[in-house]
């Protein structure tokens, strides 16, 4: 999932002072706890303001957005009871993971959503609902990954809403196009053997892999 995104936040004032066994390095780090409203140009009167550090948790915008899309994915699994349970647990893990900045929990949450889709499909959810659930899960995955990477690189204190909304809009568009196209093809060839469709899919994936190599 978002595991592969390893780019560390670049060094906006990472501690650079030397460290020894006895003393910690000197030098402040960058980023903030709260937006620095009302600090414009006032000379320090009494207590000096606290140094703020990078808070690498995903932003609230990203968490809310991923939670919302994830909710769509879970609601559309409602036709199959066990699926909702799996998907719901996934959604919970996703939101808690994003809120706490626990990447592993976020990945597990996304996996839960997708397992929910698979269970719903296995239990015979109508194609229309299932495909929406799958698309919503994919978008939730994407939005969560975006929030995690923004948290790592930019931090919770920075203003990231625009980047997250634009990204979410982009992947929603991709999902819509994919769903529409797939659904149209599905309706056209409906009634054909399932195996034929599967082989078609396998061919598409192989083609993609070859192109990649």
């Amino acid at each position, binding site marked *: 999932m978002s595991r592969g995104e390893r780019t560390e936040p670049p060094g906006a004032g990472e501690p650079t002072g030397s460290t020894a066994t006895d003393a910690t390095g*000197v030098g402040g780090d960058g980023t*903030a706890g709260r937006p620095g409203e009302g600090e414009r140009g006032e000379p320090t009167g009494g207590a000096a303001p606290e140094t703020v550090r990078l808070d690498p948790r995903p932003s609230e915008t990203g968490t809310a957005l991923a939670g919302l899309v994830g909710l769509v994915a879970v609601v559309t699994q409602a036709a199959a009871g066990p699926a909702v349970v799996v998907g719901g647990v996934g959604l919970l893990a996703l939101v808690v993971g994003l809120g706490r900045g626990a990447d592993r929990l976020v990945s597990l949450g996304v996996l839960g959503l997708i397992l929910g889709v698979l269970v719903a499909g296995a239990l015979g959810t109508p194609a229309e609902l299932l495909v929406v659930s799958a698309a919503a899960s994919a978008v939730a995955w994407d939005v969560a990954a*975006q929030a995690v990477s923004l948290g790592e690189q930019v931090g919770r204190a920075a203003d990231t809403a625009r*980047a997250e909304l634009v990204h979410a809009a982009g992947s929603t568009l991709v999902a819509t196009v994919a769903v529409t196209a797939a659904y149209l093809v599905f309706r056209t060839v409906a009634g054909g053997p399932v195996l034929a469709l599967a082989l078609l899919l396998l061919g598409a994936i192989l083609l993609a892999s070859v192109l990649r190599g």
Partner: protein
Amino acid sequence: MSEARGRDEPDPGRRATPGETLDRETHRWRGVNALSLAAGALGVLLGQPALLLVAVVGVAFGGFALAARPPDVRVELSRELERTAAGPEEPIRVTVTVRNAGDSLLPDIRLVDGVPDALDVVGGSPRTATALRPGKAATFSYTVRAARGDHEFDPVTVLARGFSGAIERETAVRARGDDRLACTPRLDVGDPLPLRGLTTGYTGRVVTDTGGPGTEFHAVREYRPGDPLSRIDWKRAARTGEYATLEFRRERAATVVLLVDTRETAYLAPDADAPSAVERSVAAAGELFTSLLSTGDRVGLGAFGPGAYWLAPGAGEGHRARARSALATDGAFAPTPREEPFFPGLELRRLRRRLPADAQVVLFSPLCDDYVVRAARRLDAYGHPVTVVSPDPTADGSAGETLARIERRLRCSRLREVGLRVVDWRPGEHLGAAVAAAQARWSG
């Protein structure tokens, strides 16, 4: 696919320099094809065609990620500082504006401003993420706390991704506008430090053990023709008829060289937010410099570390101003260690050549290694009495910290045993108080 995929991945820890671009795959859609295949297989097994539809959605996202190319990043950045010269601890607002100078949409652009290492961010965030249409600009601002020194802002790190986020391009851009913040503290007159007995021929405040004019009684000796009338002991003359002359302890000026230990090993602090030993040394040296000048002593200044700074002993307002600007902005006294090789033996020999014969040395060092102890003893042995003012950077949180604290105390004692004066200056303590405490054990 794109060229970027063929090349070796740059090290994730490496930062781009201006003009360079690093492309990295984020692998954010890793596993999507496998999950799609699993969905498809499940569909075939269970005879549920709807699951194949799910697989198609997955493959679509996988293909979307695969088609990603690094975005074309052309941005212009400008940085504006509220003030480019500030006093210490003053909050300075920094405003950075980014403009998309290319002709394509940048859906995901992340910026990290190159805040100088020595400055702390106290409000807002020096980082932002946004989306920019061609020609559009975005602004973010944050507040830093000014600290002593001449600080240069580093280039802004720019990370851009396309819509799929599969490939990230990193580059660094130098911002136009302000890129320096100079912070020069005032030199306050501090408490005087009692000096050692090596003096010059000039009148000053160091009380010596030789007789002559002065205020403190030294001895009575026989009258010699030519002695000033005011110093004849008239009461004795009236009583006995013999003339005698009062001697006072001569008050002489000293030549003092303030030597600040700026080796990398001196950049130590009890915790991440506390000022480093070098920072405290520099502040103390500044105070002492002015207070010694005001009492008529000749004062010099030196840095014992990379970028060795040397200001020969002197006097006067110009001399004071030179020392002030050196302590504030010279690279040798920078608030963060310099990454240059330093040869202490060579530097010590050079220092010895430079020291005037009648100079005494006040060494500012946290005493956290053995070399500086040897150096102090050698200077003392060469005939330059050494007083060590040692800002204590140790903590006692862990066993290692406690050990370092004990080792430092032992170094202090070793110096005292061989007759050097040591002022052990704890964090938060006033230097005057530390000097008074240390003075209790000094004699003569």
